[in-house]
Each structure stands twice: as structure tokens, then as C-alpha cells.
């Protein structure tokens, strides 16, 4: 298992009022994303535990794109990954932002 | 110790016990007076629908007719693995046996399991794990899951599994692991009279409340179960 963390500034506070939300399931090719509104409005964080070792660069790119597109200010994303493809990761992150 | 040795040591004043194709049925007098109902699975027999229905029937006939504690002797294989048993709804037969034992235990007929040989998986759930106190006889070798099957499913080698088993009692077979988890309450020695050890237990039976999770925590085998169950229970009670 590998632990990877990212911290990004965010342009805007993520909309919504819920304090937390969860999407996905930890299974082969899938992941769960727990999102919590616990950070200052201009920050976001992504903490990943993944079964697939050595994909730090890919995660960095996916997370970077996601933060750029959605500006999820104030949100902390905690991920348990079962070896999902990048597009599945992007999908779950987007679902999480929508749900919260 | 053979089953005959065990029964003779438990009940030196005699007994009425039959072993019919691995199904143990009977009763025996207790030193303290009264009788103990006996049932169980012997000779590492698989527990299937045909065995389970006889065992549950033996207990049900006794309820209302007799008083006194109940002893479940266990040296079984796992549940019987067959098309026929599953076709006929094995899950109900095994659950029924467990329910009958649990009901007896909750209604004045304390149950004691004596694991003296092997047992595994569904058979263990329906017999030893459905009693109030599960005793292990030194030398017994229970397993929830055997290591070769685990190796096949996890795709780890036996050596790797055995190595991991050194640092945790949570998955590997064995009496001491199950004792540490809180499943087996105590271990009896076959060097001294089983009748003495049985009498001592009967004189000091714990209450009918299921405290195995607390026992597992005390012994360091299960550190989370008791706490999580209690937290959920407390939160759920507040929902009222």
C-alpha cells in the first residue's frame, strides 16, 4: 500500500452546506472518496491510500486537473483506492464535489 | 483421548450415550445430582442436514421434560459440502440447531461446548460457538478456515501465511488463537479428571450474557469488537 498526499490552493470555496459526503466502493478498479468540509476556504487537500504502487505522477496529474477544474476550496478528500483507472478517479472526485 | 475416554472421564458413574455414524446422543448423571444432556458430533464427521436434524431434535425433546445443563461434544469436520445438503437448505438446519441450543441456554438449561477434536466454519457455528461456555480440550485443533484454502484464495504461500500468523491470532487455526479471540473460554487438561473440571465449571457458570467480545479484548485477540459494538449500541439507544 502507498500513501500519497496533496495540498493545493483553491480559487473558490466549494459550494454547498453539507459537512461530509461519501462516494464509491473499495473494490478492484474502484475507489471510495470521503469528502469533508474542514479546511479554510482557499485550501484543499487530497489524502490517498492506494493498492497500486508507483503511480505518484499519475495521481499528481489527475488531482491537479481536478483542483484546477472544480476549485474545491475548504474540502479535504480522503481516498481508499482499489486500483482504479485515472478516469474513474476523476469521476468519483467530481461526484464527491457534487454530493457535498 | 478418544471419545470413550473423554466420556468415561467426564462421567465416571456411568452414562447413556450412543454414537451413530458420528452423531452423539445421550445423557449422563452428574455427581452433584441430576443429569446432563449430551449431544455432539464425533469422528470428524461432517455436519449435514441429516446430522443436524437429529441433534436439534434431541435437545427439543429434552426441553420441558428434563432439567439440568447440556453438553455439546465437538469433533467434527466442517459443514457437509454437497449439492444435496445445499439443495435442502443446510443454512436452516444449522441455524436451527444453534437456535435450539441458544434457546435452551436462555431458558434454564445452561450449555457447555467441549471441543476435543477438530471443527470448522459452519459446523463450529452450529455447535461449539452456540454454547454459553466453550471449553477446549488440550490437543483439540479447531479451524475457521484451513491454511491451504486460505493460501489458494489469497494467492499467498503457506510459508507467508504462517509467518503472518506469528504476529496475529486473527486468522490462523488453533485452540490458543480461538482462546485469545474470546471464542474458547477455557482449556481443560486431560491429565486430570474431566469430571472434576466439569464440576468446577458447573459450580461457577458465568451468567448467560454473551461477553465473548469483552473476553477477546481482555486477552488481546480482539481489540476493536467490544468497543465498536458498545458505541453502536449506545448511539442506537439514543435514537429512541
Amino acid at each position: 500500500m502507498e500513501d500519497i498526499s496533496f495540498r493545493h490552493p483553491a480559487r473558490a470555496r466549494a459550494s454547498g452546506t453539507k459537512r461530509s459526503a461519501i462516494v464509491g466502493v473499495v473494490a478492484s478498479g474502484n475507489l471510495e472518496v470521503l469528502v469533508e468540509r474542514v479546511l479554510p476556504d482557499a485550501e484543499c487537500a487530497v489524502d490517498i491510500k492506494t493498492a497500486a504502487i508507483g503511480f505518484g505522477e499519475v495521481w499528481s496529474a489527475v488531482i491537479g486537473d481536478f483542483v484546477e477544474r472544480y476549485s474545491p476550496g475548504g474540502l479535504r478528500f480522503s481516498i481508499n483506492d482499489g486500483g482504479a483507472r485515472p478516469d474513474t478517479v476523476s469521476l468519483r472526485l467530481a461526484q464527491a464535489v457534487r454530493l457535498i | 483421548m478418544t471419545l470413550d475416554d473423554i466420556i468415561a472421564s467426564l462421567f465416571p458413574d456411568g452414562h447413556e450415550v450412543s454414537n451413530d455414524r458420528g452423531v452423539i446422543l445421550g445423557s449422563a448423571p452428574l455427581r452433584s445430582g441430576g443429569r446432563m444432556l449430551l449431544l455432539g458430533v464425533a469422528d470428524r464427521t461432517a455436519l449435514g442436514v441429516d446430522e443436524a436434524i437429529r441433534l436439534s431434535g434431541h435437545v427439543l425433546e429434552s426441553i420441558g421434560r428434563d432439567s439440568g445443563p447440556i453438553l455439546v461434544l465437538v469433533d467434527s469436520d466442517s459443514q457437509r459440502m454437497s449439492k444435496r445438503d445445499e439443495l435442502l437448505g443446510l443454512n436452516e438446519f444449522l441455524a436451527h440447531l444453534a437456535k435450539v441450543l441458544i434457546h435452551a441456554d436462555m431458558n434454564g438449561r445452561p450449555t457447555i461446548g467441549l471441543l476435543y477434536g477438530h471443527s470448522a466454519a459452519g459446523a463450529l457455528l452450529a455447535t461449539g460457538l452456540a454454547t454459553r461456555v466453550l471449553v477446549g480440550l488440550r490437543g483439540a485443533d479447531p479451524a475457521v478456515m484451513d491454511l491451504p484454502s486460505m493460501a489458494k484464495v489469497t494467492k499467498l504461500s503457506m510459508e507467508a501465511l504462517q509467518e503472518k500468523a506469528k504476529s496475529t491470532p486473527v486468522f490462523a487455526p488453533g485452540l490458543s488463537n480461538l482462546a485469545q479471540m474470546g471464542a474458547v473460554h477455557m482449556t481443560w487438561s486431560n491429565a486430570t479428571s474431566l469430571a472434576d473440571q466439569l464440576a468446577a465449571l458447573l459450580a461457577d457458570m458465568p451468567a448467560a450474557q454473551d461477553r465473548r467480545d469483552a473476553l477477546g479484548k481482555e486477552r488481546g485477540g480482539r481489540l476493536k469488537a467490544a468497543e465498536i459494538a458498545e458505541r453502536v449500541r449506545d448511539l442506537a439507544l439514543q435514537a429512541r
Partner: protein
Amino acid sequence: MTAPLKDITPAERARSTSFYEASARTRLELLLDAGSFVELIGPEQREVSPHLKIFDLPEQFDDGIVVGHGRLSGSPVFVAAQEGRFMGGAFGEVHGAKLTGLLRAACQIGSIPVLILFDTGGVRLQEANAGELAIAEIMRAVMEARTAGVKVIGLIGGRSGCYGGGGLIAGCCSALAVSEQGRIAVSGPEVIETNRGVEEFDSRDRALVWRTMGGKHRRLLGVADVFADDNVQDFREAALELLGLAGPFGLDRLKAEQERLAGRLSRFGACADAVDVWTAEGVADAQAVPELPADQFVALANQIGRTSRDAR
């Protein structure tokens, strides 16, 4: 012209959602009255399994089971739903303890029923001893709750079925609802084949698996009491029906069950296949049962008349 999404009623949404395909969370959200579900020890608590790390396996924040309370047609219920896609919905130490705690609370309260949405392969191998013990404790807790007057209803229709120790817990419930996709058994098809050979059970013969362990056979045999179509609304209605019909537990139930099971053995104990069982039960065209659509099957099952509600 189809209605815009926001105009679909909860019932319509639940009717159009496959129970089999839905996650544990979605099943609960659509089964219970809208917005009534409150989760206990939810994922933000991060109570993960302490035993998966040693196997280098990923954890899930809720350890694969969602427990809490909500309302069903306005009445309070306790609920537990297993996530069959996480480690096959298998019972581990934390997973099992969440259900045990829920049942113990139900026992203490006495008047709030428990719905268990089974979706499990049984004991989680990596925590085999803890999982097995959890199942034993759950069985005891179910029986103590039922003795206190609590109705414990099982719903079975997920990807992992209801296998192993899960099948034994199901056998302790007041009543069960099952869909075509649901399976109830102790040993899984592959395990039987590995241990006894392909002649005993060909695990790749899907039709055989479903005839032997699947929802339709279980309904006709009386292992389950109600057959539901594969959608959440059907399961909701099945749960309501069973809550209305399930009676109090006592010794008479156990005696009736002994007769029911002994009777089953004597009537069907020599049957080679489920088709022979169904024929013996009076089904005119047993071969056609697997293909029957849900509504026709329900009519057939009700006509055969075998339920076990008063004898389990």
C-alpha cells in the same frame, strides 16, 4: 414525454433502481422513507479494519457495512446493509461488531424492528477467527432480540448473495425476502467443487447454482418467505409485508421448525435436483420455473403455499 428527474417520486425512483446493482448506501437511501436515514459510526469515523494492513489490502472507511436507523412508512426501524463489493461483503471484526451493537440496542428497546440487507460471502478470510466469532455473536444477539419481541427481517438480493455464516444468521431471522439474484447457502459453489469435485457440483454451471441456491428455489422450498423483484421498491414492500406478518418468537416456533425441516427431509431428501423438488411440490412445469417472470413466479409460489413464518 418523460418527467424531469426532480418530478419522479421516491417510489418511482426506488422501483426503477436495481437492488442488485445498487450500493449498500443507495439501497438504504431508497428503501427507507426519504431523508430519514441516520448512519451510526459512518465513514467519517474511519473505523477501518485493523487486520488488512498485514495483507497489504485496501481498507474501506465503514468496513463494508452501513448501520443506522430510519423510518419505513413512518415507523422507526434499525437497518444494516452490507456492501457486497468490498471484500465480498465478508464479516470482519469491525464489520460484525457494528451489527452486533445494533442488535443489542434493539433487544434493549424491544419495539423497533431490525432490517438486515445481507450481501456476503461469509467470514472474511484475513480475519477468519474474528469474523466467525462476530457471526456467532450476531446469531446470539438476533435470538436475544427476537426473544425480547424484536422482529428481525432479512433482505437478500445482492452480488455476493448470503453465504457461509451469513446464511446461518439469515436462518435466525424472523422472516426473509429474496430476489431472483439472491442466493442463500452455506458452502459456495467453488468450495463444493474444490472439495468434492466437479461431478458433485459444477460451479461454472450458473443454471445449476441458481436452481440449487437461488432466490426462486429458496422461495419454493420455504427458506425465504417472500420473493421480490429486483428493485428497491419491491424490497421495501416486501419488508413492510414481512414486518406485518412476522409474529413473536418462542419455543413453539422451534418445535414447528423442527417439524418443518424434518418434513422437508422426508419429502425431498431423495431428490437429485431442484426440478425434482419443485415437481414433488406440485409445480406443473418445473423446468419453466427459472424463466418465469417475477409476477408469475410470485403467483405460483403463493399458490404452492409454503411459507415458514410461523416455523422459524
